């Protein structure tokens, strides 16, 4: 009996590596700490009522961003471990197996469990406030999306301590990811972690499309909408059409592994190339999904800190929509070397280059928004400027990569690695940081310390260039990606060392950011105005942090920069109006179903991973029961009486 338990445990838990034991201990300690803290301060009820069951878009947004930061930490540690291993030739810090797992989890976590939730967090916090709505179109679904993401991410991360991590790269190319070469459970964790959170992403996409199209404040025509909701709309369009491809493709891979189907296997007539074809049909739109909202954020910030209207509004809108659709027509540039023939390669090289046109237009428009402006350099603006420079370089190398015959030389080399980090860090991460710094006061009611923020900014930037510019060179030296180590004879070590130092600087930059938050909480600078940046759009017209119903009375919109215009109107003729008449506000009720249902999904996913049929079936039955319970519940919303609104408003406005 005891022997059985022991052998099960040694298979079930990941063993043998001191790094992992260390992580195990810290995870257990953290969990004990959290449980103890919650019990000691009697906060369980608070946690359940205020957070786990909430359908408030702002709280959901905060939870998304918090998870994104945790995942940024884990993905960042992965990155630092990889860079440490590559700092010098022939190092043995990480064994090949471990290294392979780390680059896989780094990629998956950074794209799917860091960038995506960070982006959804900003969607949630900002979009309803900017379009003058009291919540998203489907608040219940929104909570469900978050918890599905959260439990999907947890399932994926669980592979670190239980069963073993996936090791076949962030897109898990078969046949290497098939059972034939990869019999462990890591790959199944990958499939189900992504699958469960992917369902959440898809629902968020639907939710925000409907929110933006149907819930704008009275008078806000589409063409009077701020740029960020436009970018969210274009991103969500790409989400709803690309994520189903991911779901289907991963399902096929799963059928291969679980039921012995032959979609992508070597034997039985399977065709691994089909997977590569399908996964990139999702994979390419995916990178535009995460970068488009960043473009929206830059647009907001540039015009706020140049104190000037956004230049070329219509061009910007068209450019984003074109990018969103065009992103579906370029996928084959990820496998020019698969031998699809000159026709295919020429076509996809051309469509790829076409994307450079609308992207270039956007950069020009940002520049000319600053032109004849009055620019100040608070942290959000610094990140935006950092982005413009960085993204120009990344965009340029992107065009170089799109030249199909030249790509035969760039493909899978460090040139490519440098390029996509250049666009994803320089474009996406910088953008989300800019957005977070910009909207932080609105979220929490206080500003972040600018001085430490600037330190963080410079460390990020210098670290970034030091890390990735050498990688372009390494690519031209013939270094391919996913190498666990390399020899002295190749002459790669100087560049690798510089790159590692750069990665270290970015790690320090992250610490600065954590310190910045801690410091700002300690030395609280409350934002009394609700409009700390002299903003232009509706979210700045309400107090910080926003009350749970957002707007006591819904704004009437007549212009694209409604709040800016309103402030000028008030300057011309000081406000003498009586306070607007309040009406009861219709709000959704909290619900525990999203949390519970996502737990059941988690259980079902775990059952699939370990092939425990009883757990899978109970999980799926639980999911079905949750859905039926919810369907039969007709009591899902309530009205806030006018008295409550008055009291809340008086309390906030002081």
């Amino acid at each position, binding site marked *: 009996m005891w022997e059985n338990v022991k052998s099960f445990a040694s298979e079930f838990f990941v063993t043998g590596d001191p790094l992992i034991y260390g992580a195990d201990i810290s995870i257990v300690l953290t969990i004990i700490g959290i449980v103890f803290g919650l019990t000691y301060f009697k906060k369980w009820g608070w946690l359940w009522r205020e957070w786990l069951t909430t359908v408030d878009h702002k709280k959901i947004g905060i939870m998304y961003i918090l998870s994104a930061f945790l995942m940024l930490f884990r993905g960042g540690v992965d990155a630092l471990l990889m860079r440490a291993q590559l700092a010098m030739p022939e190092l043995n810090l990480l064994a090949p197996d471990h290294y392979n797992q780390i680059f896989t989890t780094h990629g998956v976590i950074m794209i799917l469990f860091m960038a995506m939730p960070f982006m959804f967090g900003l969607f949630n916090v900002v979009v309803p406030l900017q379009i003058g709505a009291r919540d998203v179109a489907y608040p219940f679904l929104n909570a469900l999306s978050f918890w599905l993401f959260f439990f999907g991410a947890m399932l994926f991360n669980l592979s670190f301590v239980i069963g073993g991590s996936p090791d076949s790269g962030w897109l898990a190319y078969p046949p290497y990811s098939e059972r034939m070469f990869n019999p462990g459970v890591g790959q199944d964790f990958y499939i189900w972690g992504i699958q469960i959170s992917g369902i959440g992403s898809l629902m968020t996409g639907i939710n925000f499309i409907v929110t933006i199209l*149907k819930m704008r404040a009275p008078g806000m025509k589409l063409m009077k909408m701020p740029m960020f909701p436009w970018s969210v709309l274009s991103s969500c369009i790409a989400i709803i059409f690309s994520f189903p491809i991911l779901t289907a493709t991963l399902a096929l891979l799963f059928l291969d592994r679980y039921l012995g189907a032959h979609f992508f296997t070597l034997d039985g007539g399977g065709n691994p190339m089909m997977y590569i074809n399908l996964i990139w049909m999702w994979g390419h739109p995916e990178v535009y999904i995460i970068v488009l909202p960043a473009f929206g954020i830059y647009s907001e910030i540039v015009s706020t800190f140049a104190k000037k209207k956004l230049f070329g509004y219509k061009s910007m809108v068209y450019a984003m929509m074109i990018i969103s*659709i065009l992103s579906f027509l370029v996928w*084959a540039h990820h496998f020019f070397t698969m031998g699809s023939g000159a026709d295919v390669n020429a076509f996809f090289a051309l469509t790829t280059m076409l994307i450079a046109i609308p992207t270039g237009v956007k950069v020009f428009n940002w520049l000319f928004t600053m032109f004849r402006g009055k620019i100040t350099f608070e942290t959000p603006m610094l990140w935006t400027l950092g982005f413009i420079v960085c993204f120009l370089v990344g965009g340029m190398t992107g065009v170089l990569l799109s030249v199909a015959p030249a790509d035969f030389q760039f493909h899978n080399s460090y040139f490519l690695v440098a390029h996509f980090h250049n666009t994803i860090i320089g474009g996406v991460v910088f953008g989300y940081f800019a957005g977070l710094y910009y909207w932080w006061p609105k979220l929490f009611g206080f500003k972040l310390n600018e001085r430490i923020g600037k330190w963080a900014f410079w460390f990020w930037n210098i670290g970034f260039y030091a890390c990735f510019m050498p990688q372009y060179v390494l690519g031209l030296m013939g270094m391919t990606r996913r190498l666990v180590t390399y020899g002295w004879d190749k002459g790669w070590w100087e560049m690798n060392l510089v790159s590692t130092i750069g990665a270290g600087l970015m790690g320090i930059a992250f610490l600065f950011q954590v310190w910045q938050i801690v410091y700002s909480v300690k030395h609280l600078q409350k934002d009394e105005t609700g409009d700390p940046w002299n903003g232009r759009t509706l979210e700045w017209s309400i107090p910080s942090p926003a009350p749970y119903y957002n707007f006591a009375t819904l704004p009437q919109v007549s212009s694209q920069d409604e709040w800016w215009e309103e402030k000028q109107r008030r300057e011309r003729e000081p406000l003498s109006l009586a306070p607007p008449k309040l009406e009861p506000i219709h709000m959704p009720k909290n619900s525990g179903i999203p949390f519970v249902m996502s737990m059941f999904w988690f259980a079902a996913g775990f059952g699939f991973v370990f092939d425990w049929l009883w757990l899978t079936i109970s999980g799926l039955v639980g999911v079905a029961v949750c859905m039926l319970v919810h369907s039969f519940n007709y009591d899902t919303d309530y009205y806030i009486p006018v008295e409550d609104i008055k009291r809340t408003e008086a309390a906030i406005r002081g």
Partner: protein
Amino acid sequence: MTQHDMTHPHDAETQGSLKSYTIGFLFSIVLTIIPITAVLYGWAEGMTNTIVLMTAAVLQFVVQLIYFMHLREEKKPRYNLVTLILGLIILLVIVIGSMWIMLFNMVAT
């Protein structure tokens, strides 16, 4: 939770009458029988066959859209139609793109 984009309140339901549903039903029956007989009696070969079958299927899709899903009666702005068109474009990109890349273009020997 209030919505404002709609200028005037109206019911979510689409209309349709017994007549339109029945016409739609008859159309779809006919459009199913044609390809079945075409295949069972071997009217056409190769490409012609494919064209006949696909035309019947697409026509039937249109019939369902118009007579059953009442797509024509949607009020402006016609977001349903726009999302449908976008969806169909992406669908065609996926299917035709896969066929083009996977079936017609192999450098291999």
